């Protein structure tokens, strides 16, 4: 598969007050790929993800989107390129309902000049969207504070789908979920893939990673130590890379 990469990094590095969080990392991810990003704590996964989502600027190196170099200074910049990140905290507003969270930052207006919200339309579209994604919630009017972990995760995913994300980055999506909820989430990832979206999953759960990914990238102490097609490797080998690094 030699399609133009959706996202590419070239010798990406990031330093924090003398600490090297990311060192000379070059990766290339194609459209429709599901990539697992693994590594021990402090391996640089979050740093890489934050750079891709505009939350951090790199100290050196380049990020290319569709072959074009970009300089993200704010999460807004990444969103403009249809990159959406779901952090572990899910970044939901507990005091708002499901619809309000799904449309946060992408509201529809009844009057664009006064920014009067078209709530009826947004509720209708949220219901449609949740149906398409086979996400079940009690009501689109339910406040997020009353939702379970899986329902929150699904709300966060519905939000990025709504935003029209092409690249979705998931940070430890299954860490707080039960067995059934994890199942539903992985199914949702596969539905996103079927829609042609590209997905990066950070996870410690080898089983989840091996179930949904096409490729696995291993970081250790800020460096890329392995970049393997999932069907050509196995959990033992990946764990070895995570612990020992490059042979």
């Amino acid at each position, binding site marked *: 598969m030699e399609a133009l990469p959706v996202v590419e990094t070239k010798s990406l590095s990031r330093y924090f007050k003398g600490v090297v969080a990311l060192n000379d990392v070059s990766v290339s991810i194609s459209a429709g790929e599901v990539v697992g990003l693994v590594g021990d704590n402090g391996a640089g996964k979050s740093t890489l993800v934050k750079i891709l989502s505009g*939350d951090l600027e790199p100290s050196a190196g380049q990020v290319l989107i569709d072959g074009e170099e970009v300089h993200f200074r704010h999460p807004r910049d990444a969103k403009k390129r249809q990159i959406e990140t779901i952090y572990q905290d899910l970044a939901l507003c507990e005091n708002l309902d499901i619809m309000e969270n799904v449309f946060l930052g992408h*509201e529809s207006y009844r009057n664009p000049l006064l920014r009067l919200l078209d709530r009826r339309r947004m509720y209708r579209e949220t219901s449609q969207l949740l149906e398409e994604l086979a996400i079940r919630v009690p009501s689109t009017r339910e406040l997020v504070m009353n939702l379970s972990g899986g329902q929150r995760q699904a709300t966060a995913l519905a939000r990025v789908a709504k935003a029209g994300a092409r690249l979705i980055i998931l940070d430890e999506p299954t860490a707080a979920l039960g067995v059934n909820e994890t199942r539903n989430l992985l199914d949702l990832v596969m539905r996103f893939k079927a829609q042609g979206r590209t997905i990066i999953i950070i996870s410690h759960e080898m089983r989840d990673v091996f179930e949904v990914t096409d490729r696995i990238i291993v970081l250790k102490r800020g460096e890329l130590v392995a970049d393997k097609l999932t069907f050509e490797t196995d959990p033992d080998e990946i764990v070895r890379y995570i612990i020992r690094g490059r042979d």
Partner: protein
Amino acid sequence: MTAQSPADASGLAVRLPAPLVTLLRRRDSNVFFLLFVLVAAIVFFTIQSPYFFDDRNAFNIGRAVSITGIAAAFATLLMISGGLDLSIGAIMNASGLAAAVIMVDPENSIIVAFAVALGISTFIGFSNGIIVTKIGVNPIIATIGMQFVVRGMTLATRSGSALVRDRTFLEIGQGELVIGTLEIPVPVILMLTTMLLCYLVLRFTQFGKYIYAIGDNASACRRAGINVAGMRIALYTLSGLGAGFAGIVLAGLTGAGIPYAAGSELSVISAVILGGVSLSGGVGVIQGTLLGVLLVGVLKNGMTLLNINANWQMVVEGSVLMIAVSLDQLKQRI
């Protein structure tokens, strides 16, 4: 999800009836509670004093709370977003004095007085916003600092009051709008209009939605592409503008700009909190603020009619605030 009654999930030993639990769990439950307390207070004072239940007295209460109410409406928006403005009182004095000083010269137009007073207030509010968001100073510290700066500069400009004789200007504070047999004080109309405007903003606009969203999770909003810093600066600016407007109405009411008037920021903030806004942000409605402001006004007026001295009135006012906030804490456990 199992079809559990909400009371089953409660950690309280006492089991509350289901409809009550549903009511308490509503976002705006304290509005019902305040309404109940307000009606109870009105009934109590009506029984105790023959002068209380009367449209003239009602408008006295309205006029007395209108200044706090105008400032509180804007402070509500700011506080729902998690902000706090302790320079409100100082801004009111500065704005009232500025307007009055300009009006001392009969040559000057009322429009100029308004523009200068509101311009100064807006600029102070904007400065608060910049210091809090761009430099990152804690809002309490930043706005206390601003309070001293503004108060000092106001007194340096003029140490005594500036009397206003302009009829039109005085109408803003002392005028009445006659509808049928009712003579509604202009400040009351201004307060209700301000509150209505803030209600519509909170309820129907994107700006209002973002106020709640930022109050709950500002970093989520930033990541959702919302200009959080811009929102905050706008809210501090509006708080300044609201305080400035309240200051002008106050000058109209008293007929003077008074540079040394006692700061009323704590009355404003306590009314907002009594109305159900949390200092940590994310919750509250403008109806709550209106009821909070009215409840304080009714209590003060009623107690005055019952000849309760001002010191004890303060004790009651403080206690009501503490009871309201305590009940709200207990509610979280349901």
